[in-house]
């Protein structure tokens, strides 16, 4: 009988016989093949018997379904095919048990615990959505009020200080300006600001005590300066 072998990296998790006309795959518990991983959609894909052939159909999953590295919406399954769903693979075994050399991930290393490097091709398989990578956001501040050196600051560094200290990205002037008033952090997913040195930080007139995710147009008040955050691209 046809079956699939669910694997995570090189480790086989379980074997599933394809004994129904439709077999559903997904993260939700009512699927026939449940893969409990964030990279897998609730209802990710289904395997269908059509005549003598087996097909796999993507159920509009977020990260897609791949046969041997090819993204498919529907594709026929052959013996030895490797289906990638999230970070798990399904090895397709049809009819006769053929000992196929695992086409799974060429992972280097000796055990699960050990650090290993994976080949670029396999990274694509695992990540399954190279195209989904978000472009890095670049933002900045326009100074509305206060004594600063420039009117417009692009925030290119990982951490930018607003304050009087040497090296502060947004360098405040004036005797009463605090050394460090706030820190702006840049991450792949965007910017956030944190009050520092016990100074009051306000965003859009509201006092902020912890991390605040900056949005285009936010008005930030720190250390006697008022600036507006903007997203450049």
């Amino acid at each position, binding site marked *: 009988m046809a079956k699939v072998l669910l694997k995570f990296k090189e480790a086989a998790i379980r074997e599933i016989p394809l004994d129904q006309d439709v077999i559903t795959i997904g993260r939700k518990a009512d699927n026939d093949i449940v893969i409990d991983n964030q990279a897998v959609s609730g209802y990710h894909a289904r395997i269908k018997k059509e005549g003598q052939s087996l097909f796999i159909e993507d159920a509009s999953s977020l990260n897609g379904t791949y046969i041997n590295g090819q993204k498919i919406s529907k594709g026929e399954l052959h013996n030895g095919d490797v289906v990638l769903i999230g970070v798990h693979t399904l090895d397709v075994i049809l009819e006769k048990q053929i000992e196929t050399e695992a086409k799974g991930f060429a992972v280097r290393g000796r055990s699960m615990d050990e650090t*290993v490097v994976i080949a670029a091709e396999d990274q694509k398989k695992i990540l399954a959505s190279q195209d989904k990578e978000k472009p890095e956001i670049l933002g900045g501040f326009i100074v509305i009020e206060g004594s600063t050196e420039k009117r417009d600051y692009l925030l290119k560094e990982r951490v930018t200080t607003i304050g009087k200290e040497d090296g502060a990205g947004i360098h405040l002037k004036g005797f009463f300006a605090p050394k460090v008033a706030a820190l702006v952090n840049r991450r792949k997913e965007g910017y956030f600001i944190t009050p520092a040195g016990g100074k009051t930080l306000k965003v859009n007139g509201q006092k902020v005590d912890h991390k605040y995710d900056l949005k285009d147009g936010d008005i930030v008040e720190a250390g006697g300066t008022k600036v507006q955050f903007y997203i450049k691209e």
Partner: protein
Amino acid sequence: MEIIARGRTDIGLVRTNNEDSFYIDDKAGLLVVADGMGGHASGEIASNLAVDVIRDYFKAFKEGRAALIGKFDEEYSEVAKAIGSSVRLANKAIYEAAKSNAGWQGMGTTVAAVAINGNRLSIAHAGDSRVYLVKAGDIEQLTDDHSVVYEQVKRELLTREEAQKSEIKNLLTRALGVASDVEVDVSELTLSAGDILVLCTDGLNSMVSDDDILTLAVSTKDPAAVCDRLVELANKQGGKDNITVIVGYVRNKSWISFLLHFKEWFRR
């Protein structure tokens, strides 16, 4: 600006050998950590080689006799280009060494290297070893892990919290020695007096939370004591991997600090 840095490496409680390496030259402002991998103790060779090549390249650069390796964005400083070049060169050295010796096949290493020049910090890294900046009571990771889990975070498939618990944290997307070329991330930042830099291998950050690193880093002004406490805590939490950490305090170069430094130097 100058940096007072100390480091420590520890085998941990589970591994039978230590494959991490590190290097500190606080006078030249160079700090490096590397986490090797591979069979037959070759991980140790790889991480050692990385550290040695970076050290030698940087020395040659300071003496004005090092050529850049590969292309760099023009906006980077000379020091940033040099530290990036040193990591690229280390990759080639490890790759060639691995090819030449059957027992070393498949060896590789991560690297996180920083150079301090004036108030500018230049960072180059590949793999999942990290550089943190502790500033004004806050800690921020300055490097993106080159791991599958982090790629998933970037694509918003996982949150940072879920990533911390992931079972595939050990899958790297980049490392030195795997191919003839490696993509090295280079970045720069402006430092201020009072900032603290922490470089570490994953044996630390997989056992100790960022908040705990922050708390210990600001607990004293003695970098060696902080390293000891961090290693101790990582081992207390399981010590599953080799642990390596460098802690460096950034301060203004004044004649007083010069005197203090001199005293410390004298004590060594």
